[in-house]
């Protein structure tokens, strides 16, 4: 194992070996279970209420995963990523481990790179956890089979799962944008909770501003503006241009905030 991957492995072990984070991941995984059981107990009578996927669950259990992702995207998933990314630098500063890491020495750019890589792994893991739990419980309670896309066409189980994987990828990239903001905020403070809350406020604030029609001129710049474009993966044909726009949008956030974190952290006096 190379030196870089050894440090990343150590970083992931810090994240995934921590009981607090297990609890957070458990909450994420519980949501699809609750959805599946609730739908099983009282099937929804309301068909076609938009892309909430709930009404499709009884037809194909795979939709539990999509419903859970759609429900967790506005709060639980960003919350989890904000907590982890807010902890990245501020957590080490708060414990006093940052000064020791830097004198090992770990180059500051390398530290940021490894921290961000770990955030990305966490974002992907959290998204896949929700999806996999949803698929497993959904198939167990409702069975699988062909899936009906939003545009009405039926696709095979395999293609359905492939499209679900695409949705997970898209959502994970959106969450990586949250992670980049979190990394930047985390480099500003020694309070990990404060950094996590600030990151979450920026995400929630983006949703709120997006809900105010009078602010439409700024909507295209908001973090969450294109998050719901993942639905384009469930149409026929796939809405590639909207997806690409969403990915570029998230990518811009990632580049800007990682660069800001690098500029800030690279020159910072470490007095923690």
């Amino acid at each position: 194992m190379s030196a870089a991957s050894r440090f990343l492995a150590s970083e992931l072990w810090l994240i995934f070996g921590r009981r607090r984070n297990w609890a957070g991941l458990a909450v994420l995984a519980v949501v699809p279970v609750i959805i599946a059981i609730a739908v099983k107990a009282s099937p929804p009578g309301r068909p076609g209420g938009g892309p909430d996927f709930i009404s499709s669950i009884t037809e194909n259990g795979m939709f539990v995963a999509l419903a859970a992702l759609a429900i967790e995207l506005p709060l639980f998933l960003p919350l989890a990523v904000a907590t982890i990314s807010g902890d990245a630098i501020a957590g080490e500063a708060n414990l006093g481990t940052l000064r020791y890491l830097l004198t090992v020495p770990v180059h500051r750019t390398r530290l940021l790179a490894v921290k961000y890589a770990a955030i990305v792994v966490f974002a992907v893991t959290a998204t896949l956890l929700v999806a996999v739990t949803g698929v497993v419980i959904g198939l167990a309670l409702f069975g699988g089979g062909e899936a009906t896309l939003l545009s009405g066409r039926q696709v095979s189980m395999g293609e359905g799962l492939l499209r679900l994987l695409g949705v997970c990828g898209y959502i994970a990239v959106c969450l990586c944008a949250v992670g980049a903001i979190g990394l930047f905020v985390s480099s500003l403070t020694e309070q990990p909770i404060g950094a996590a809350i600030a990151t979450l406020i920026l995400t929630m604030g983006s949703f709120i501003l997006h809900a105010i029609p009078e602010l439409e001129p700024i909507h295209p710049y908001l973090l969450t503006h294109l998050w719901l474009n993942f639905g384009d993966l469930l149409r026929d044909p796939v809405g590639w241009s909207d997806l690409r726009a969403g990915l570029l949008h998230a990518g811009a956030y990632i580049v800007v905030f990682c660069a800001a974190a690098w500029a800030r952290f690279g020159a910072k006096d470490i007095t923690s």
Partner: protein
Amino acid sequence: MSGSAVGPAEADEASATTMPASPGVVVDVDEAGVPLDRAADVGEVGVPHAGRAGAGRVSGMSASRAVEASAGFAVETFGLTKRFGRQVAVDSIDLAVPAGSVYGFLGPNGSGKTTTIRLLLGLIRPTAGRHSMLGEPMPRGAGRVLPRVGALIEGPGFHTYLSGRDNLLRLDAADRTADRSTARARVDAALERVGLLAAARKRYRAYSLGMRQRLALAATLLSPRDLLILDEPTNGLDPQGTREVRALISSLARDGATVLLSTHLLSEVEQICTHVGVMHLGKLVAQAPLAELRAGVAPRAAVETSQPDEAAAVLRRLGLSDVDTAVDRATGVLGDLAPEKVVEALIHARVPVRGFSVLAPDLEDLFVSLTGEGFHVSG
């Protein structure tokens, strides 16, 4: 130990190690190839012989370390300055830590020691000045220098929910120069060396302050080091632990490492240091080999007698300097003279002696005179 007794005794020790130098103080400044003008800067602070900062290793030095010492300084700063807003935390200091020395970095709390250490390690950027470590300019050479430097900075800092061993493995994983295959063995060896192996699997959260301090010391021993920068290493340790840590530092120094030891404890300096630098209000007010500092505060002989003038005459005749009389006593700076010779001469001259004492030099008095206050907090 009186100041006058230090010189000859240690000179014997040094010459026994076949030093190619003159007796007494071993490696002279110019012989070591060290520019004398730097030493002259330090001389201005008014400590006797403070100019010999880079001069001789004083005791117990092996031949190989003598070579290292002549290679120069393990840490060297030039006008290093750090301002935080309007406050000057470190004010243009010229630190010179000779390679192979145990350098006591002394000063009251708040005098700028920790800020200096953070500057040395590149954690904070200087407002002005520059420095080098292990012969390389910093912070440019940090990637090559810091793996050879073990540091304890302002107390321990570890992940509370990991065990002591896991915390060290984490630090080792971050070190790109460390060999993964030997990590576990090195971690356990470091824990063993600080007496923490039995508690290796305990969570850090459950460690006492002394155990935490030991773990921080273990972290500095994960790989072979040429320089150890230890900020208050005995903080929080019980007397037994304090002795162990001092023995550990001495053994590291014997193995050839340079130790920069920041402390506010004079006893620590007296017991293990070869060189001393004194910080006060952000300034380096003195820097010299410990033996020279000691010599700077010469022991005085004090005679209690009903005939102080006669006693003073005897003292002068024996060559004591700065002879002074009071109503019932005479005192003088003893110099190299053995105290018993003085007593003998007094008796011989029929001076009635009621009491005789040697007022040994007290480092504390010296440091109080340098810092102008008790050893507590700088404002």
